[in-house]
């Protein structure tokens, strides 16, 4: 029957402790990383955290110009009229709400749904 040496007897708890600590640390790191990925939110990179992006139709102005022709006050009777040049009508422009963004100039960011923030896990999954 082999006799256990006194040195090996004293090392066993230390080795066990080290293993436990390593397992614990690795466990904490894994659980923490998973928890963070699931719950922690970061700024949406698509909209830089604004929650909205520039309307592609009106380029962020929110308005569109509509040209129309109007009768000049000279009624075409003044050939030197500085407004219409004697034609009797001139073209001008009016503005109205952009149909796409309803005048807001922006649309809700499709990546973050308007929150301006996105969960880490979603970002990883989308990549």
């Amino acid at each position, binding site marked *: 029957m082999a006799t256990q040496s006194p040195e090996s007897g004293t090392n066993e*708890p230390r080795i*066990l402790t080290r293993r*436990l600590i390593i397992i614990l640390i690795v466990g*904490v790191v894994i*659980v923490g990383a998973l928890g963070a990925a699931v*719950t922690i939110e970061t700024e949406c990179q698509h909209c830089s955290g604004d929650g909205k992006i520039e309307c592609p139709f009106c380029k962020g102005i*929110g308005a569109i110009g509509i040209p129309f022709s109007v*009768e000049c*006050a000279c009624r075409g009777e003044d050939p030197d009229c500085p407004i219409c040049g004697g034609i009797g009508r001139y073209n001008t422009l*009016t503005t109205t709400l952009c149909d796409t963004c309803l005048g807001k100039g922006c649309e809700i960011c499709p990546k973050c749904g308007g929150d301006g923030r996105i969960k880490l896990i979603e970002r990883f999954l989308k990549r």
Partner: protein
Amino acid sequence: MVTDNWKSRTRRVIEIVAIILFVVIGVTIILQTTAPSPPQGVPPKEKLTEARYYQKLGDGMVQCQLCFRKCTIQEGARGVCENRINIGGTLYSLVYANPCAIQIDPVEKEPLFHLLPGDTTLCFGTASCNQKCLFCHNWHMSQRTVEETDNIALSPEEAVTMAAEVGCNSISFTYNEPTVFYEYMYDIAKLAKEMGLVTYFHSNGTINPEPLRALLPYMDAACIDLKAFTEEFYLNVSSSELEPVLRTLKIIKEEGVWLEVVNLLIPTLNDDMDKLREMCIWIRDNLGEDTPLHFSRFFPAYKLLKLPPTPLETLDKAREIAQEVGLKYVYIGNAPGHIANSTFCPQCGELIIKRVGFIVQQYLLKEGRCAYCGYPIPGIWD
């Protein structure tokens, strides 16, 4: 035996450390995900200016007393104008020192035709309005909230200094309804008067009497929109009321501030000639025959795109009616080149201020009198 004790003690310590670590991580995560975020776009309370003219109703409610709407505002909410917010039972202005429009314009653009002809003015406007006019030409400012406009931080002191620096003799509050930035307008006007600048405002006339009377000592002139002469139009087209506008016009006249009235003639909506005659008679009887009246030509804009521009004949007819009623200074605006852009002497009929659009081409007044016959022309000329 000793080894077993050591092992169990070590395990217990490790368990405790693990529990502590999990608790710390868990709490951190919870705090991060549940921390309240402030509403987007609203400046911190410390940076806001308390509104004037409101009442505290208790239970955190306030009632704004600035315009005819007298909005009752719950904590955290805003009035119809979107510019006044109730934070903790105190009403704050969101647009004080926060204009979205600063521009140098000719005085004629206002339109004010009896005030410093040919001069330029530094104009200020902010986001939002207390009316919702379907035809608004400045809708990109007036029908948007302060969060939706690009604003510039500019204190009243800086605003007045800017006017002097750019060589403007006057300051104007215009584009949107200045009542919705009353505190800012008041403070600028007061400073401007101290510096000898001329001040005026272009309003829809729905401000309440008390704040209006407090403001007028610091104003030289006012340009008021009388959009129509029926409550129906005000309700359906502007989401507003006529009566407060008539009251404002009378107060401005009483207080001796120079007044010009603007009526935008919109085909089919307010171009009934009988109603226009009623309106002109009211102006003559309550404001005086010397009060300039501007009939402005409508151009399709914002939500009124299906209506055509006002025919020139309608504008001419309206002017004829106003002159028949006895109004001496009746103009037609938004029709550059029209003869009624200009001022004629009511006595001798001579052309005394020739305008093409906003440009003054001829000025034949001497010390406020017609250069031909000496008839005094009311206004602020020097």
